[in-house]
């Protein structure tokens, strides 16, 4: 393995046994991986049992794009916007992966995306979007609704 940082490769293995090789500069976008590299634990393949191959590929794609100096500000904005156009299953997978791997910019974006899905929606609409069952009785729901409306801000 070469000692110069720019050529160093980091190997990662997803939960479904897919391996990925990326440059160190790309990998250290993840604070978690950066800590491992700094501690000297990144010499062998790093196993990531919490992240499946599809999601890991997406996260590494994001990291690569953010390290690439040829990408312009506008291009990056468009990339980030398109990136989050996902179905919900992938969105949650991405959220947990970004949290575990601690990729700040990505985590921020995904959290905001989920928050935006909640903003301006009534409870029924939120239930529909996230496919959640209403386990309140009508009386419980009415009590909370009144409390929300009258007791505080």
């Amino acid at each position, binding site marked *: 393995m070469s000692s110069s940082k720019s050529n160093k490769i980091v190997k990662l293995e997803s939960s479904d046994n897919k391996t990925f090789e990326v440059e160190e500069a790309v990998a250290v976008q993840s604070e978690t991986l950066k800590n491992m590299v700094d501690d000297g634990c990144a010499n062998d393949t790093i196993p990531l049992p919490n992240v499946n191959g599809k999601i890991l590929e997406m996260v590494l794609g994001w990291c690569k794009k953010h390290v690439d100096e040829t990408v312009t500000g506008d291009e990056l904005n468009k990339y980030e916007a398109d990136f989050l156009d996902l179905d919900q299953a992938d969105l949650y997978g991405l959220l*947990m992966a970004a949290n575990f791997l601690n990729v700040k910019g990505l985590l921020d974006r995904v959290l905001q995306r989920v928050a935006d899905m909640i903003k301006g929606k009534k*409870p029924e609409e939120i239930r529909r979007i*996230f496919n959640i069952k209403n386990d309140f009785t009508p009386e419980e729901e009415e009590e909370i609704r009144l409390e929300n409306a009258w007791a505080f801000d």
Partner: protein
Amino acid sequence: MKRQNTNTMIANPFDLLTEEIVFAILDRLNDDALAKKSFSLVCKAFYTIESRHRRNLRALRCDLILRALKRYRSISHLDLSRCPRLDDATLTHVALATAGRLRSIDLSRSRVFTQVGLASLVGNCAGLVEIDLSNRTELSDSALKAVGEAKSLERLWLARCKMVTDMGIGCVAVGCRKLRLVCLKWCLRVSDWGVGLIAMKCKEIRSLDLSYLPITEKCLSPILQLEHLEDLVLEGCPGIDDDGLATLKHSCKSLKLLNMSNCPNVSHVGLSSLTNGADGLQQLILTYGPAVTTDLAKCMQSISGLQSIKLDGCSVTTSAIKGIGNWLASLKELSLSKCSGITDECLSFLVQTHKELRKLDITCCRKITYASIDSITNSCTFLTSLKMESCSLVSKDAFELIGQRCRLLKELDVTDNDIDNEGLKSISRCSKLLTLKLAICLNITDHGLTHVANGCSMLKELDLYRSSGITDAGIAAIAHGCPALEMINIAYNEKITDNSLISLSKCLMLKALEIRGCPSVSSKGLSAVAMGCRQLMVLDIKKCVNINDNGMIPLAQFSQNLKQINLSYCAITDAGLLALASTNRLQNMTILHLAGLTPNGLAAALLSCQGLTKVKLHKSFKPLLPQSIFEFMEARGCIFHWRDKAFQVEIDPKGWELHAGRSPEAP
């Protein structure tokens, strides 16, 4: 880890997310109270998570506080300013409910509790660092003795506590040694002795507001010796004068902000005593003071860190302005609003030195012309805020320069100027514009406004008060192009019809709508806004004589956030007012000369609206209702403002006064 079928939605996805992640999502909803409330109603798990997440609570009703605190066990900041009848017993229960967690409490404007409640609060909440007791005009020294037991206290507001004396302040000074911020504005019975004691005992003080106190330079001596003092506000202190200040021997190296506005007895002589050696000074506020002369400018010449100076309302000599142009510091913020004496020559010289200016206020600088705008836009290309209301000599082509050269502008006020559509077209290039004031701009039309709609998509505030060239088409363009719009004013415009309001109903973020004196607007348009703009908080439809009860029903039904409303002169009767008042959201209501309001209707509306804090209405109603109603309302924390204005038949009787200068709007 649950297996994920990536083609369909997960059964209950939030189960997979850790509490840490859900908290992070809720953090991003902190400025959206309605979103969090919706979230809590989704299912039991969400309800529980939201109740663990919330740290800030503003209680709306005294009788429901404790219930809210049972639901929310992690409250660290509690705002009780909307609970005017907070008594000792309730305050004690609040203290017991929040004990270890409470860090900050706002008790301003609540009236009934005494030192007993305060003692119990302080005794139970050892972690309390912040208490706001502003506007407690009858608060006594014994209450401050109780506050003196709050050993961890860092920030204390006592503005307008007119009954507290040096004795009470002394207790606070001796007991709360960790204080960093103290506000004693208008505490008229506090003198040099009390203030001096604070300065001597509380060595951690960073911020001190002594506005309007009868203090002299005697207390300033220990104050200037505070090692960490950053902000000193001495607004309107008549006892501080040049002779007294000249006796001061110390200087304050840590001082960053000095506010001496409204100090008529302090000229450059006294000021230099304070600024001498204040090498860290960043902000200076000298509004409405004596004349600004070259000597005053010289005081500040070598303070290299000065960033902001406000001289509103002072008469300024041209050589003083040139003196400012010779400063070592490079200003970021300069306010010369209503300063007499500003000319093209001195202003141009000034901006050439201060190229880093971000904010410039030249409101009512009536001598400046195109030349000044040319210099300003040439030198200060980083400007984010420019206010130039009533700069009457500036010709219309000057406004084109603004859009060409100052693309970073976020705030622009050109009220009462000769700007035309060409100027607006140029300004539409400032794509970051958030606030645009075009009030009393008689030469602009829809054509120009459409350019703004196309170019300024981030626009939040638009003021078109009395800009009579605008019609429905212009408003439609804005509604379409500026989806982030939060506030719009289109008062006194006969051409604005329901179509404008229907367009505006698409602006989902709209919080404030002011359309006074628009006779072509009716309940149809208002209903559209009510249904579309659910965040509406402030509504002013005074003199919209064609809005009747039918407009009130949708407001009652949809406007969950409506807090302030002006319905004067509208065709509203008892029924409409009651429908609106009984939803219980309103806090502030102005109801002069409603077409069909009777004493009974008024009584019913007042009694049903439990959150009312301010009502403006006509004096003639006072004898027509039982006195006990007003007493009851006042005990509930509501203040009545009685107006004597006679009914005006014309919609816009003040319109002709336009050219004499903008007259202040009557309530």
